[in-house]
């Protein structure tokens, strides 16, 4: 069914999103060293909000397709809110992943399929600080050059059908990512530019309840 295919695609991207969130909190260049620095940088973090701009070049259009979004993380509430403005909203809260469409109607996230189970597992990792789940999905390598960054190459065949690699560059203080480039299996690139993060902002529980 088309529904299963779409849900699978969304599930794959959900996994990617969680990996991005993981990255925002704890990944490394010279993996062990940077992991330690990231963990240290996020140790006292309670809440975080960071906006992003997504830019994609498509053969369809002469100019890049640009969209915007915001990520909010609350450790006290054990929750993450990821919003693509005017498109969709993902909320990871406790042990549950929920998604809403642009019209505010709740959508499927894959039920109890392996992709969703993996997503939940990675969410737990985000909240507990156990990052071993990421290593199961991606091979990690440091980016060349001076910037603290990481290249993630999918190990999972289900992911590598869609994603060739993810390259993340972090701020010098490791508090949040600066940029991300997602290269698809077909070779095209989606670029994320992250704004300056706002730390310890007030994020009420309602932010993680729905649109």
């Amino acid at each position, binding site marked *: 069914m088309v529904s299963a295919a779409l849900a699978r695609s969304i599930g794959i991207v959900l996994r990617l999103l969680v990996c991005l969130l993981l990255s925002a909190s704890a990944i490394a260049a010279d993996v062990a060293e940077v992991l330690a620095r990231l963990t240290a940088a996020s140790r006292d973090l309670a809440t975080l909000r960071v906006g992003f701009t997504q830019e994609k070049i498509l053969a369809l259009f002469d100019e890049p397709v640009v969209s915007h979004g915001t990520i909010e993380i609350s450790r006290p509430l054990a929750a993450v809110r990821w919003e*693509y403005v005017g498109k969709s909203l993902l909320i990871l809260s406790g042990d549950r992943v929920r998604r809403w469409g*642009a019209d505010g109607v709740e959508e499927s996230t894959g039920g109890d399929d392996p992709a969703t189970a993996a997503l939940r597992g990675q969410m737990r990792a985000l909240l507990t600080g156990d990052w071993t789940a990421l290593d199961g999905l991606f091979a990690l390598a440091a980016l060349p050059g001076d910037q603290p960054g990481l290249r993630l190459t999918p190990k999972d065949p289900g992911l590598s059908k*869609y994603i060739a690699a993810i390259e993340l560059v972090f701020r010098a203080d490791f508090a949040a990512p600066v940029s991300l480039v997602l290269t698809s299996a077909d070779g095209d690139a989606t670029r994320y530019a992250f704004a300056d993060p706002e730390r310890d902002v007030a994020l009420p529980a309602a932010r993680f309840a729905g649109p």
Partner: protein
Amino acid sequence: MIRLLALLLTCAAVGCAPRLPPTPSAARAQDPYATAPGDWRGAGRLTLSGFGRRASVGVLMRVRAGVARAALVEDGGLVLADLEIGGAGVVVHRLAADLRPHQAVLVDLVAVYARLPEPERAWRRGALRARTAQDRRSYAGDPLLLRRVDGAGWPVHVADFVTVAGGLVPQRLVADGPFTAELRLTLSEVIALAPR
């Protein structure tokens, strides 16, 4: 009971659809109208619902010289499909492996926006029925607009139009699948393109 069930299943299989609007006699003299003559681009969402589930992805569309090209783009940035349809046929620039078995369903949706030659046209059961190289089209109502496309996938109904590029463009499409499954394509942003 079994006959009722069989009828429902048949309806699902053939996509029992909303009836076409009536076409007044005076409207039969109109030229059938499918989409705007000018070039345009659009963005919106494709939503699938059915079997108690719902999912959506972004849609980007461009129509130049009657050739429609559409991409399905997951919100994270992955292109799931990139299809081009015109008088020369269908070009699949990209299609995710998981969606390949459902190419016909997606092609039928994009084909609504393409200007395809209609060598055969005839009035039948209150609607102007046309045949292209790849689908059958029904024009009805006043004005006499494209209301339905039947190809190799699910029947597609044009639920609404929007004004752009010197004419009307289908803004909301509904494709009826089996067992109440439904695909809805809605263009929330449509912009005329400057002629090349």
